[in-house]
């Protein structure tokens, strides 16, 4: 089965470019995109691939991100494999249509270079944009590095287009700190890609031979049931998501799980991260372990559907969990991830305390030392210090 190695190709390449080339290898039929704030190079490169004849697709240069997602809905409903990419303000402008794309069960794949929302206007990295789209009913995955961003593009099509799923899929990768860096990435051979995702066979499409009505009115008598069905299928998609990762492991040897742990054995406290900062956090954990501190790390890869069981399994034995959010819930409980984690743990008899950090907002650098500091503060709570309120890491008062 594992015939990847001889055909794989390792390239030093910008992560955005590799994602565009993954979309090309996935043989997408339509790309509709708009460059609000600086786009990533994904759609620029895709338009070049179309212009050079390397990708046989319709590139629709729409006049807004709202129209980008709308055109993606039309394209996906017509039965075409559909891809787009966006970021921050663009994602916010799509907001309305994101709910509709998922409710229509359209397997659109979208890369989101996570960035701060205005205002003040910022083009830099945090998770403020995506946290506003938490409940849009999409499958949402956060990647940690370029290889994962590239691999996850294939996973996205594989899962989204599965007839037992048929949901749109967002690949979240950190703006700039991932989107614009050059990393060594092992490419899949086209043969492997074709084997893994094949052609998109829509279950239903806008077909004059079999006319269907998509997007009808949901009267009170049926709206609730459609929401229930949507929630059900999104929760149930976890099995397909994990199975598709298992198969990817067999094909290319890389293993992805909904929740990842790092040096958790014997750890009294764990930090919890999501996305590209996880690798910095791992470096911090390494240093603290060398200094003899009982510290480990948990990373969330699968954000929606939320992996409740896997998360609990990963954190149940630690005394205190230090959650590192990349977004501030303004005027609210602190960070959205921490709120979610606390909600997930609340009914458990055995559960860690949760210390909340909000770090790396609007492109503010989060260094190894910052993670070490967060880990030490978390450890001090395990040692009996009072639970502090959420901390905006590095803020100048």
């Amino acid at each position, binding site marked *: 089965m594992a015939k990847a190695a001889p055909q794989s190709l390792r390239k030093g390449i910008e992560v955005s470019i590799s994602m565009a080339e993954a979309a090309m290898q996935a043989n997408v039929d339509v790309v509709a995109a708009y460059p609000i704030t600086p786009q990533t190079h994904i759609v620029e490169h895709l338009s070049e691939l179309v212009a050079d004849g390397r990708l046989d697709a319709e590139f*629709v240069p729409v006049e807004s991100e*709202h*129209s980008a997602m709308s055109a993606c809905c039309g394209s996906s409903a*017509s039965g*075409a494999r559909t891809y787009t990419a966006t970021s921050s303000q663009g994602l916010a402008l799509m907001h309305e249509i994101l709910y*509709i794309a998922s409710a*229509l069960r359209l397997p659109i794949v979208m890369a989101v270079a996570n960035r701060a929302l205005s205002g003040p206007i910022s083009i830099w990295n945090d998770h403020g944009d995506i946290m506003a789209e938490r409940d849009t009913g999409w499958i949402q995955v956060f990647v940690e590095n370029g290889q994962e961003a590239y691999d996850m593009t294939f996973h996205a099509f594989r899962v989204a287009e599965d007839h037992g799923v048929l949901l749109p899929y967002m690949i979240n990768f950190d703006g700039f700190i991932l989107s614009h860096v050059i990393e060594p990435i092992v490419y899949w051979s086209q043969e492997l890609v074709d084997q893994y995702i094949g052609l998109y066979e829509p279950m239903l499409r806008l077909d004059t031979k*079999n*006319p269907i009505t998509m997007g009808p009115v949901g009267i009170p008598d*049926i709206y609730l049931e459609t929401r229930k069905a949507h929630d059900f299928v999104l929760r149930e998609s976890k099995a397909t998501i994990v199975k598709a990762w298992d198969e990817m492991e067999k094909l290319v040897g890389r293993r992805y799980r909904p929740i990842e742990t790092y040096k958790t054995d014997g750890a009294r406290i764990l930090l919890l991260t999501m996305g590209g900062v996880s690798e910095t956090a791992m470096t911090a954990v390494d240093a603290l372990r060398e200094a003899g501190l009982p510290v480990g790390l948990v990373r969330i890869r699968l954000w929606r559907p939320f992996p409740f069981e896997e998360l609990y399994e990963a954190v149940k034995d630690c005394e205190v969990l230090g959650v590192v959010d990349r977004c501030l819930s303004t005027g609210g409980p602190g960070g959205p991830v921490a709120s979610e984690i606390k909600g997930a743990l609340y009914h458990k008899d055995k559960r860690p305390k949760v210390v909340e950090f909000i770090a790396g907002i609007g492109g503010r650098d989060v260094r190894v030392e910052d993670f070490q500091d967060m880990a030490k503060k978390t450890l001090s709570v395990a040692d009996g210090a009072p639970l502090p309120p959420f901390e905006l890491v590095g803020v100048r008062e």
Partner: protein
Amino acid sequence: MIEPFNVYAARLLPSQELFAQGHRACQGCGPALALRYLLKALGPETIVANATGCMEIISSSWPETAWGVPWIHVAFENAAAVASGVEAGSKALRRKGRIPDKKPTVVAIAGDGGTFDIGLQALSGALERGHDFIYLCYDNEAYMNTGIQRSSGTPFGAATTTSPAGSKSFGQKTWKKDLAAIGVAHHIPYVATASIAYPFDFVEKVKKAAAVEGPALIHVFAPCPTGWRTPSNLTVRLARLAVQTGMFPLYEVENGKYHMSVDLPFLKPLDDYLKPQGRYRHLTKDVIAVLKKGIDQRYNEILEKCEANHE
């Protein structure tokens, strides 16, 4: 000239009803009539992208549908963008041999609010990009679905729930946006105005719009008895009077060349059109005079463009 419709209709239009009866439109609904004619003109090889609005609401209440052609509704302001995607998807799949190489007619449908106001950006984008599709705006001159609020398609002087007549107001203070001219400004191959009172003219225009390569825009006038405060049996008559009084001239613009569709030796008195309508009931002679002047000026501008074309 339209009176013998009953006699000829069966022979000139297909009997197949792709927009089925039994939908939830009000009695005397003009836009529903427009959709019925639209699909008689286009036939079953059609895919519709419908904006939110009266026609979407009344035709698609789950588990029933009035649509005998593939139909998609996404949101209010994006019918043109959704149609862009449908057209692009269908084109890519045909080129790649994934579906039979038979091009469907893609139609975006939206009301005046979904076109003149909130959908204008998406419309402009789709026209500019040159998608091969028809954009049909059914114009009942206000947001009827949400409760008769004014749009930028509401005519001067008309009372709506957000341009009410009062002691200090004569209703809508602004003039109807010139949608056809906006279409023409995109240099698309075909733009036309049409009316549900001239069904054969409308059907011919839809067929022309479907035949051209690239975008086509049809602005069809369709009275709303509920919003206009008119008896439901006057819908067609009022639509005809709108044309005959110069309120809504019928013309087409093929590759930039204007052509008047209905030649009128003289314009009928504007009062004939205004009087039966509750939305104009409050108008004083002075305001009507202003309206008449503006309408005549606009009508003459169209005439001049048509005449310039014939010189």
